[in-house]
């Protein structure tokens, strides 16, 4: 085990002390055992590792402060740090000019802009006209990542990514990449509307009709897959419905089919493949529907798809689940029950308006509380796009599209119907190594001139560093080494 990095081992990485090196900060753990250090920290209530940089110069890295028990020193008392915190959690990092724009608008106006700005439509993907949706999924992946890199409204992509993990679909089972492409377009357009119309959109989305088998379900012989996951994962959560409810809503939802193609083409193997020239949604076939009374969530009578959705929306558990998931994604891994209840109440009262919910999240005191500073782990997409933006390049789309897998996130290929887990689940021996390797590859492949690394400590890391990161930055020989340390640091993995 590499217990301590000796000075000699660091020299080999060209992180050697620069000639003009200032005094190394005193690292409390050096020279005493970790047990002693920890015992001291626990006894006095101070941590052993966090440093807050004051001022704007690398020369001042040596200034240290102790933190409250083991935590990062929150800079969120300052408006600029609060804005960087907001942008980190709502976009994929930021360029200096994007940060400047936010600073001149101020926090509240920036929140309004995030929530109110319409999404930018990505350029059309030519391959989507391929018969049968038979083209490589990597085309869709890279198309979306390029749009994330280039759009003027990155929040629209962040919230689309949130829904991509929530109302998720897997290209392998969908087996038609045109449908996957359409789903991405639909999720972007609906992302900040209201849950009632979104649920209808999700239910009749062609990729979803395939993914959770609603397209092949009939009233006479219903398939339970969509019915169950609509309640368990998309809206109410486990424990809030019965197995009878699953069976009954499976009947009520049956009848949806894939849209009719505009034409057909013949494949090389002489198979008829559908060709779609415009985006479509599923169509309802009354002959496949269930005729009869349905007892669902406590009421009996005729019930159609809109009826199922409305009954789901009448359950308090639905707003609670969405609020919990939004909070875990944007605020804290462990939101308090009272915080979730407050958000859920606001969401319900607004008739499930996403703008109201997200506005309420970003302006809540919890969002920028000191306790929640660096309280979330960046997803692989956020980390990679953020690193790319920090390096001032938007030409790494291909590298980014190909690098998510080892970090546990391949777009359009979720691990299961529950989408991607978040926060601590992103951290394993495999994923952390892959993140470091991405930094190496990105710095090798980027053709942009490296921005100033000393600014990066403040612009990217808020000037809040662990003593180890500070020490290594201080000893780094040049800007390349400083950039590597900055982007590979634990600080940069967090938001």
């Amino acid at each position: 085990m590499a217990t301590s990095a000796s000075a000699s081992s660091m020299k080999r990485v060209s992180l050697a002390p620069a000639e003009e090196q200032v005094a190394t900060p005193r690292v409390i753990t050096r020279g005493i055992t970790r047990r002693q250090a920890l015992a001291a920290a626990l006894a006095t209530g101070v941590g052993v590792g966090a440093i807050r940089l004051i001022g704007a110069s690398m020369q001042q890295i040596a200034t240290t402060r102790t933190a409250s028990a083991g935590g990062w020193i929150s800079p969120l008392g300052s408006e600029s740090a609060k804005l960087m915190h907001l942008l980190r959690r709502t976009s994929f990092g930021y360029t200096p000019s994007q940060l400047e724009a936010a600073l001149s608008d101020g926090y509240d106006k920036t929140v309004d802009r995030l929530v109110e700005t319409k999404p930018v439509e990505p350029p059309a993907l030519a391959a989507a006209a391929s018969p049968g949706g038979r083209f490589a999924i990597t085309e869709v992946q890279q198309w979306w990542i390029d749009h994330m890199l280039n759009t003027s409204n990155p929040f629209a992509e962040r919230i689309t990514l949130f829904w991509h993990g929530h109302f998720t679909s897997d290209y392998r089972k969908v087996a038609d990449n045109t449908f996957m492409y359409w789903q991405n377009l639909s999720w972007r357009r609906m992302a900040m509307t209201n849950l009632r119309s979104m649920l209808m959109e999700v239910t009749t989305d062609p990729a979803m009709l395939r993914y959770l088998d609603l397209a092949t379900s009939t009233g006479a012989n219903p398939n339970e897959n969509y019915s169950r996951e609509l309640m368990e994962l998309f809206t109410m959560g486990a424990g809030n419905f019965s197995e009878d409810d699953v069976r009954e809503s499976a009947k009520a939802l049956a009848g949806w089919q894939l849209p009719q193609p505009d034409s057909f083409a013949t494949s090389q193997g002489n198979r008829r493949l559908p060709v779609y020239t415009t985006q479509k949604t599923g169509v309802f076939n009354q002959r496949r529907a269930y005729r009869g009374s349905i007892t669902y969530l406590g009421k009996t009578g005729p019930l159609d798809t809109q009826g199922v959705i409305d009954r789901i929306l009448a359950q308090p558990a639905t707003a609670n689940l969405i609020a919990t998931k939004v909070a875990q994604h944007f605020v804290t891994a462990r939101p308090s029950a009272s915080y979730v209840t407050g958000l859920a109440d606001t969401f319900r009262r607004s008739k499930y308006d996403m703008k109201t919910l997200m506005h309420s999240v970003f302006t809540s005191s919890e969002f920028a509380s000191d306790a929640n500073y660096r309280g979330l782990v960046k997803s692989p997409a956020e980390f990679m796009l953020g690193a790319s933006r920090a390096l001032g390049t938007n030409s790494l789309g291909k590298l980014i599209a190909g690098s998510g897998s080892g970090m546990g996130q391949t777009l359009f290929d979720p691990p299961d119907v529950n989408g991607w887990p978040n926060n601590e689940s992103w951290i394993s021996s495999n994923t952390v190594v892959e993140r470091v390797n991405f930094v190496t590859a990105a710095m090798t492949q980027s053709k942009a001139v490296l921005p100033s690394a000393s600014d990066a400590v403040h612009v990217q890391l808020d000037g809040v560093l662990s003593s180890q990161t500070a020490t290594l930055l201080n000893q780094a020989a040049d800007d390349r080494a400083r950039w590597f340390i900055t982007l590979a640091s634990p600080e940069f993995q967090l938001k």
Partner: protein
Amino acid sequence: MKKEVGINQLKRRDFLKAGLVFGAGASGLAAGYAAVPDAFARAVYAAKKEGAGNDNILVMIQLAGGNDGLRTLVPLADPTLHDLRPKLAGPMVSQALPINSQYGLNHNLGGIKGLWDKGKVAIVQGVGYPNPTFSHFESIRIWETGDPTRRQVDGWLGRTLATSYDSNGHPLTGCACGATNAPGALRDLQATLTVIQNQKTFGFTGGGEVEAAVGALYKGTPGIYGALFDTAIATATETMATLRTSASTYQPMADYTDNVKLVYSSKNQLAAALQLAAELIVTGTGVKLLHVTLGGFDTHYTELNRHDDLMGYLDSAVSAFYKDLAAHNMADKVLIATWSEFGRRPKENASGGTDHGAAAPLLLIGNPVHGGLFGSEPSLTNLDSTGNLKYSVDFRSVYQEILSGHLGADAQTILGASFDRVSFLKAPVAV
């Protein structure tokens, strides 16, 4: 001699103090994971045992999505099967590989049938638990934690690592092969484990220099994720050091090539994961508990070909793995066991598939196994109120036999209770 307190234990204490629980992310939300453990109720510094009673090895294969037990071990002579599954039953019965007059293995399980004929396969029928949930995520959690009441947070293998092995400084004691994230079964706040997706690419680009820099960077990291990050990097660098040695001495002695076309993948990922497992085992890395996953078993639609392909995948990977272990004289040490969150509904649906079910058979494979059928046959006519097969063997009975009989671990401590025995081991080491 007084035992050194390892760096990982200290970090884990920080970690506990911060009140963060493994596995309580979005899937935790869905599965209703407990919020915060009582950090100080745990004896973090409790002396660890020097190791379990022997050097046996366990490989758990997760068949994720809910494996159709009726298409794995096919009831050949039950006419009800054809009533319940008009589309699916015909070919699965006619093609099955009979193991007696009543049952046959799926026709793509030819390699495993060969092992059955040699007495190296035990099949426990009707495995489940009371009041089954039909949620993937709740049921996965129940199987991972070994707790149908859903109070337990740590995984049953994670608890085994923590109570029975000194994984401190030996990150390869528990290993998830072919994965990017730790499976719930291996998680425990006090256990170290490695996650390796692919050993060929597991390492730092830039080699030792980067490794040294990153090793220095990830130490004493503050915050609730600090210990997790630091442990991940420390574990990774230790594992790389071990793999550097093992890669140079391992020669596969069996054929892992993919000769089955799978719907979900163009390559047999299970075979790749098991080959990595074989490498870790035969090169003496100290690995004890391994976990690999084959996904795609949620066969709600067109199950016929899809499930056959998955069976073929399982069969070719397990057969090659067994041959490799045998050729390296390690087969006596290794028990292979399958698990899945549930079986599937006996009655098929309109999509030519089956919905979520309950009880299903488990396969136990290897030289330590006493071959044969265990448990009792689930009845196709006496289904439960949801139309599913009733269980006859609690899954924790199987865990108990593995823990005490194969690993020599204290099953009662790990599982919190004792269960009826299922005697599928030839020579159980302790009971």
